[in-house]
């Protein structure tokens, strides 16, 4: 475990010593600020229902998704690809650490960065709470949904980063895979008649899953889906790192 902690710490040093981290953080805050502005405008509208604002905040706008689809590949692209490009993978994998520990450390660092990205948004909740009544249940489940989406997407991104030694290619691969995962669920809306296939797509519909979390519905099926797919990709990442040596 100490080795994993060391890997996480090293990775965080790398994140916060590059300008990219601050660019991402700034862009994210600008976007969330805009969404917050929308929420406040809603609240000023007398026709607003009590539940609407936070559903808007958690995945209710296309901005949320667009940004998430872009930002995750940026977070994960360097994880393994950069180690391979610079050759640092060699001292790393000749130290007594396993491939599993390496992937876990890298992934946890990416997840930590993702959480740091979201932390400042807690301020919006505090501000809103001073002016209006907020049900904290849906807020908590909304953040749970954000975390689970993060695990899923970052897992995919980590896997993509093991496939190449070029960060840009890793980012494009991750982006393509995440968009695919995201849009497969949206196919549900294209199928008119109810069928087994429609149900399958429905089960994978991330947008509606996030919407459920935002409304305060914690559905185990969603948790299982997002966690299991995320972990599966991490497992694939470990295997990919092992196989790279056997060529």
């Amino acid at each position, binding site marked *: 475990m*100490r*080795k994993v*902690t*060391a*890997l996480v*710490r*090293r990775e965080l*040093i*790398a994140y916060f*010593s*590059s300008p990219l981290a601050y660019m991402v953080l700034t862009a994210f805050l600008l976007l969330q600020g805009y969404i917050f502005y929308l929420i406040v405008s809603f609240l000023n509208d007398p026709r607003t229902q009590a539940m609407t604002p936070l559903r808007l905040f958690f995945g209710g706008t296309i901005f949320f998704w667009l940004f998430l689809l872009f930002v995750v590949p940026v977070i994960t692209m360097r994880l393994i690809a950069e180690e*391979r490009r*610079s*050759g*640092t*993978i*060699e*001292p*790393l*994998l*000749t*130290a*007594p*650490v*396993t491939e599993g520990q390496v992937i876990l450390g890298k992934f946890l660092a990416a997840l930590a960065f993702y959480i740091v990205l979201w932390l400042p948004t807690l301020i919006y909740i505090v501000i809103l709470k001073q002016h209006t009544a907020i049900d904290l249940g849906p807020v908590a489940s909304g953040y749970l949904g954000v975390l689970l989406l993060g695990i899923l997407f970052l897992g995919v991104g980590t896997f993509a980063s093991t496939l190449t*030694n070029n960060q840009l290619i890793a980012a494009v691969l991750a982006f393509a895979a995440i968009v695919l995962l995201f849009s497969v669920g949206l196919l549900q809306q294209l199928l008119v008649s109810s069928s087994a296939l429609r149900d399958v797509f429905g089960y994978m519909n991330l947008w509606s899953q996030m919407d459920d979390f935002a409304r305060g519905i914690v559905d185990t099926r969603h948790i299982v889906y997002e966690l299991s797919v995320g972990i599966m990709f991490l497992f694939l990442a470990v295997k990919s790192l092992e196989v*790279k*040596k*056997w*060529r």
Partner: protein
Amino acid sequence: MIEVEHLSKTYVDTPVVDDISFFVPEGQVLGFLGPNGAGKTTTMRMITAFLPPTAGRVVVAGIDLDTDPVALRRQVGYLPENVPLYPEMRVEEYLRFRADIEGVPRSEIGANSEYVIDRCMLGDVRRQVVGTLSKGYRQRVGLAGALIHRPPVLILDEPTVGLDPNQIIKIRELISELGREHTVILSTHILPEVEQVCERVLIIDRGAIVADGAPDELRNQLVGNPVLRVELRGADGGATEPLGTLPGVTGVAHDGGGRYRVEHESTSDPREAIFRLAVDGGWVLTELAPERASLEDVFVRLTTRDETARPVPAEALEEV
């Protein structure tokens, strides 16, 4: 300390390392010498448990690569070619990180860091960011990282490449010093380096060992009898015969003027006799020196080959 038996690595039908066997006793400094693409790096990567071998056995400090690669890695400090480092970390941070992943006990991290910082002369850059260091310092940081867990075995892949002459001398001195406490394998294609630093040389070519021995031994073995360069002013061609009759001399060649090349048995030393011969003959002895065949000759002789020979696949050359 290091046992390698019938080690092979094949990339898609092309053998890069082909049935190599050797043994390195504890405390020896062994040099891998060979042209680029000979399989030096691949062999080292297998001994450090980075690349799995296609066939063969590696045992380091009694630990078999097959049974416990992770435990084997603990016995080995490895400095890869081109010294990959994390440019954004400070020297101390980097050493701390290496100590953590090498599994150095927490209580020993401080002492070990101080030891390697002292050993590799990094005292004045300990707080500096690695990316801002010169190549010579980076090399020493890499070496410090490989030493942080005090491994019994050190494996250094081309440790002096890209350094200026002063830095090269410093690194070589450091390696020689380390050779007293560690078993060292280093690879290079620079010959004087091997002669200075290593007690024993393996010349590797096209994935196979073509020579094995102490640098001096190899020279004698492969170059034949020692040769003396002699110049006798005034002798012209007249000294060939008397030189040839001296005890121990096996051949004389006249190079024109008063210059001769005298080949003799390695067990005898005819220099005194040559001096007396000059005195008796009334010639002025202006030169009398052994012609040392360098290891360079040995190397060239052993590794010269047809350039159209087996191409190395691109995959094998690519950094993993």
